[in-house]
């Protein structure tokens, strides 16, 4: 599309959505009921397929929708926690029955989700997982432990990878499931993080039950399907927005939304900070009287340049994809690695700006503790969703075509070395 086509398309979307909002949107509506309406009209997830609550919109078209929502103060689809990872995976690999049952309540906020991938014995090496899924008629019995599971403490459902075959090579014996978290066999214990918050958990599964129709894809396809989840997760890093301004508005729907945010979002108050908050650098430097310090200016400029470069790299890749070019680096690893570098550079700059005040935390500290929270949250971005080292492996092998490391984990999963522990 040319830029002229683009702006015509933008006007058309704004006109259609604007008229629909005039008719439907009101701050006095109950939140759940509003979201049902939003989903039914296809405005909750416009990037999704038409058959499943969406409109097949491109990224740029979706942005027009979110911009108009923002301008008009409209509450959108539920977005807390790892629900989008579940949604994207179900859209790509789920049966119609799975999509039918789970997608709508995921968008309305009726259900919340978590991701049950990492285990005490296998994180980077996810395919080394030892949680068992044993077939028992039309159901599976699940035993094992997961860890670092964001949102598990309030999730209704989890996307779960577990081993269904121990004799096959490690990547082939894994299957992918949706597990009901509200059952006696599932126990969730919150874990406190280095920044003091507790958004992740450990999850113990003891004879927990999953029904056959909640398996995603065929038995043994779990690894391949997990790649969809992981590549979507990687490409989402660095896109954290600053805290939601809607929750502070007045009106019935905002009050209900604020409650949802309070319950569901409290553990994630630190999320925007893990990306380093490049948006605050200049204003804090001004407020602290450091904006004329040449050393501070250098570090701020580095951070802003990297952040802008990453933003443009993403939007240009999207534009190339839309124009049908094959010149697109897949997988999101470059963006995820860049997000880590940006976050670290921001924490360097924020520390310089705050000077020795960066030694204070909480309400006593600079910018109501935001700077301390940035410093203590940035390390997460280099670990969660696949570490920086793993992203570098992926980039060097799959993008640059360099040879793989020698392997010591081929052959039947039973026979390969692994961490001591359960299973």
């Amino acid at each position, binding site marked *: 599309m040319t830029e002229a086509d683009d702006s015509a398309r933008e006007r058309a979307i704004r006109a259609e959505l604007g008229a629909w909002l005039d008719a439907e949107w009101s701050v006095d509506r109950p939140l759940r009921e509003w979201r049902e309406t939003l989903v039914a009209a296809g405005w909750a997830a416009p990037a999704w397929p038409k058959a499943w609550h969406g409109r097949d919109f491109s990224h740029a078209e979706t942005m027009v929708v979110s911009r108009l929502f923002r301008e008009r103060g409209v509450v959108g689809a539920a977005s807390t926690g790892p629900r989008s990872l579940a949604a994207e995976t179900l859209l790509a690999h789920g049966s119609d029955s799975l999509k039918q049952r789970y997608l709508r309540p995921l968008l309305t906020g009726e259900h919340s989700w978590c991701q049950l991938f990492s285990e005490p014995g296998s994180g980077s090496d996810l395919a080394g997982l030892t949680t068992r899924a044993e077939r028992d008629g039309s159901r599976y019995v699940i035993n094992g432990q997961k860890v670092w599971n964001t949102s598990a403490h309030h999730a209704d459902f989890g996307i779960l990878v577990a081993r269904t075959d121990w004799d096959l090579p490690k990547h082939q014996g894994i299957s992918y499931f949706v597990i009901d978290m509200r059952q006696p066999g599932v126990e969730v214990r919150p874990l406190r993080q280095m920044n003091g918050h507790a958004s992740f958990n450990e999850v113990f599964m003891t004879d927990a039950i999953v029904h056959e129709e909640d398996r995603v894809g065929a038995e043994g396809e779990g690894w391949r399907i997990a790649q969809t989840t992981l590549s979507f997760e990687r490409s989402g890093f660095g896109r954290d927005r600053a805290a939601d301004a809607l929750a502070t508005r007045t009106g019935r729907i905002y009050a209900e939304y604020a409650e949802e945010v309070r319950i569901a979002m409290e553990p994630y108050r630190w999320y925007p900070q893990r990306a380093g908050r490049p948006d605050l650098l200049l204003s804090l430097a001004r407020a602290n009287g450091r904006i004329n310090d040449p050393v501070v200016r250098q570090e701020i400029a580095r951070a802003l340049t990297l952040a802008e470069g*990453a933003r443009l790299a993403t939007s240009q890749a999207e534009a190339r994809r839309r124009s049908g070019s094959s010149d697109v*680096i897949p997988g999101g690893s470059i963006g995820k690695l860049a997000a880590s570098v940006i976050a670290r550079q921001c924490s360097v700059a924020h520390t310089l700006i705050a000077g020795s005040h960066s030694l204070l935390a909480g309400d006593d500290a600079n910018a109501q503790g935001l700077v301390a929270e940035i410093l203590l949250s940035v390390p997460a971005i280099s670990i969660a969703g696949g570490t920086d080292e793993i992203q570098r*492996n992926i980039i060097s092998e799959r993008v640059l075509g*360099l040879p793989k490391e*020698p392997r010591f984990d081929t052959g039947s999963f039973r026979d390969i070395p692994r961490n001591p522990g359960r299973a």
Partner: protein
Amino acid sequence: MSETGFAFSAEQNQFRDMVSGFFAARSPMGRVRELIGLGLPLDRDTWQALARELGAQGIHVPERAGGSGFGAVELGIVMEEMGRHLYPGPFLSSAVMTTSALLAAGGDAAEGALVALSSGDRVGALLIDTLDDPALLGTGLSVSDTGRLEGTAPLVPGAANADLWLAIARDQPSGRLGLFQLNDAPACQPLGSLDLTRPLSRVVCAGLSCVRLAHIDTATCERLWDEWNVALAHELVGAAEALLAGTIEYLKVRVQFGRVIGSFQALKHRCADVLMEVELAKALAREAARTIAAGLPARGAAAMAKSQAADAAMHAARAAIQLRGGLGFTWENDTHLWFRRIKSGEMLFGSPAQQREWLVAHLEATA
């Protein structure tokens, strides 16, 4: 839509392939080496073919002034491929510096010079008293009320091949900056240069006759710097990509400890980091070119593009040497030729640190 990213059109991609094919055929590394050995004379056949077959010298010049009527995006494509192939002709000095100064000046006299440069018949050089900071323009060169250029241009790229001369100098006694065209060739003294494909000269002007094409203001000088830096950012990206690709090839064949060294994680990770930095640089360079092509203010975009491209390309160059071991430190291996070209791209028109300072100054001025 405003959030839409930039993507090249099919025609632009085709143009890139043609440019790349041209340099691969007409200016392979063997030829570059040969020209360096001869003291880098102008290969006029290649220079004129570049103008005739691709319209490269006038790619951003309007058709009525003998150009192809495109803009900064297409110029960026040419520069990127030039960096990839290490083309040693005086393109930056003639087609970028001199040509964009003429475009900024406008007018009939400038148009005549543009026609000569775009056709490849003439090679231009621009005498300026600084390659660092546009704020320093006019501190060393001045033109008397009788139209005589006085002073020294201490570092002039491309002067050795030039036969069309411009200068930015201070008009006396008014003290205003102007763009002047020289009537005669000045005496130019070639200088020992780090960059073997883009050597510098010192030009002393003792009362050379010249005519004023236009007065230019500070904003125009800054705009020229932005355009030149964005062009260089593209060259740096192309050079970095060429070095990374060559390094990857080497890592796939060199064996140590019974395995190809490309399977060592320390080396793989270094290449991954370089690729990530180059990808960001590429995105910034393209956006900056689009900004210039649209006639929009480009101070911030140019500063970001240039600093990121220079840093990424220097990392690529250091890795290209280090990952070849002793071979990387030899004269025989071509890597140092790119290292030298990247160093000159990094330092011309403001170092990365200077670009970062300009970026913050710009953001503060427009806040």
